[in-house]
């Protein structure tokens, strides 16, 4: 067990190193430096600025430098906002994104599980059909369209919710809904099919014949096994929430990291793009690691000693 965890952490470090390397060289493959603008800087100023950010050093040296700083979690300065570091930007904006992400995560898992269980329990009834239609729509409508519809409905047609900004609970409802729609639909479909699979198994028949009630049957016996595919989806789900947050935060002008990432893409603020990419990758890899650790707690049949796959 300990060996397995150590091995996985070692693997994660290798992946992170690969990520830092790929992103670093991708960013440096861009023709023109970060200070090449339409309005040309005087050569003397350009030289000073480039010297300040060590852009005149050989590439290998810059890479070693970046790696050294990244190892101690220092992601460097922003080029477009002088005096601000990427770390400061992340520290300032990430809590907002994390809050929004956590709300959406719980919303998606809760609503998705309940809806999926209902649909499976009442298979081929109107409940099932309504849920499935909703889920299909949720999967096929992009989140920015859902956000647009929500704003139109609840901020303008019936002005009950604020259309933008981030100042309190009421401001969180629409963004969380828009962000959670896609994953909720996905989890619902996943739960429905896995509960249907479980319900067809012999041990459910045994439980039924022992006189176990419907609620207990669904919640105690079926749900635990049906949870496995859902848990393995949480990794990709976290990634989906992150990328969804780029759009949702931009539309609702929420001062989170996602919106900042999009702005830095517009501004071509390379160090910030690089830093946030690395930060997000780190977050997702960390999530996946934790989920793989949780897995055997849910299903004793899976042991960590054996290598998965292959």
């Amino acid at each position: 067990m300990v060996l397995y965890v150590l091995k996985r952490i070692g693997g994660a470090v290798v992946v992170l190193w690969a990520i830092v390397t790929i992103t670093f060289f991708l960013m440096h493959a861009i023709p023109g430096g970060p200070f090449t603008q339409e309005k040309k800087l005087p050569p003397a100023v350009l030289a000073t600025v480039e010297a300040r950010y060590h852009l005149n050093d050989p590439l290998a040296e810059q890479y070693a430098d970046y790696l050294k700083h990244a190892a101690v979690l220092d992601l460097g300065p922003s080029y477009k906002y002088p005096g601000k570091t990427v770390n400061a930007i992340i520290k300032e904006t990430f809590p907002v994104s994390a809050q929004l992400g956590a709300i959406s995560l719980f919303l998606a898992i809760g609503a998705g599980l309940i809806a999926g269980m209902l649909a499976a329990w009442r298979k081929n009834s109107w409940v099932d059909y309504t849920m499935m239609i909703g889920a299909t729509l949720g999967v096929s409508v992009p989140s920015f369209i859902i956000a647009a519809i929500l704003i139109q409905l609840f901020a303008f047609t019936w002005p009950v919710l604020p259309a933008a900004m981030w100042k309190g609970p009421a401001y969180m409802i629409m963004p969380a809904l828009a962000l959670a729609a896609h994953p909720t639909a996905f989890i619902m479909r996943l739960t429905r099919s896995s509960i249907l699979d479980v319900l067809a198994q012999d041990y459910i028949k045994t439980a039924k014949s022992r006189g176990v009630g419907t609620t207990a049957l669904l919640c105690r016996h079926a749900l635990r096994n049906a949870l496995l595919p859902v848990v393995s989806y949480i990794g990709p789900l976290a990634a989906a929430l992150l990328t969804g947050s780029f759009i949702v935060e931009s539309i609702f002008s929420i001062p989170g990291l996602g919106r900042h990432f999009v702005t830095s893409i517009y501004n071509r603020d390379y160090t910030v793009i690089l830093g946030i990419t690395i930060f997000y990758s780190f977050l997702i890899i960390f999530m996946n690691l934790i989920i793989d650790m949780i897995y055997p707690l849910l299903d004793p049949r899976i042991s960590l000693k054996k290598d998965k796959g292959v």
Partner: protein
Amino acid sequence: MTERDFEPIAIGDIESIYVPPQTLRQRGWQQMKQNRLAIAGIVIVTIMTLLAVVGPWLCPYTYAEQNLADANAYPSAAHWFGTDSLGRDLFVRVLYGARISLSIGLVASLINVCIGMVYGGIAGLAGGKTDRFMMHIVDILYAIPMLLYVILLMVVFKPGLVNIYIALGIAYWLNMARIVRGQILSLKEQDYVLAARSCGTSSWHILTRHMLPNCVGPIIVTLTLSIPDAIFTEAFLSFIGLGVSAPMASWGVLTSEGISSMRSFPFQLIFPAVALCITMLGFMFLGDGLRDALDPQNQKEGSR
């Protein structure tokens, strides 16, 4: 089953219970025909493809033609879907957007299939150490959030149609490689491959005549389901300003332009959004139907 199934048949009447043998493809088609959603998917995808191919030629306008005097016009007989803020006809732009979006979906997915098939095929056929090494690389790449790298690639490449093909094509082949490799590995162990080998059939013949045809089902299913993913990703890229360059327009570009003018001219969002969503639905129905029909794992369980 009915009572009739248990009646003894007359000797010599053996033909009355004879069912002609069916190939996998025929059986798949039989199943597809019964699946109404899958048929709806086929119809939607076919219509959209036809509109995308011929539509723009049939319109009196072009996608880039500006007419500022007629800007932001509501839908009318002259402009079926109205016009945008530069007075461009929205109907032809939606049709043209279909061309761009569908081509992105198709080309990106085909690149994925090619890379995935070669990579997975080599790993599966080689087996042993080579296989383990190649799949280890796939596992490592799997941990990387690919969308971020598509974004990075687009920042590096500069936005544009060909660059979107490339960025999406080289980012999402991992799944395909895993599927092909798994398929080849399990096929290698099949008795009929052994039989073919013992008859002295060449490896090349076994690969092309026996193994690849058996991989086609899962590959087609994955391909169909990856097309809407690619269209979605492109819409996302367009939204954050990394899509195709103006005056070209994909559905992603049109919807994000529509969102900015949603308050005053809602039709500018509604038409491209509906086209996008219907197409996504079509591909998903088609993909699910194909999976039910072609996936051998489903066949064992029988129709549910």
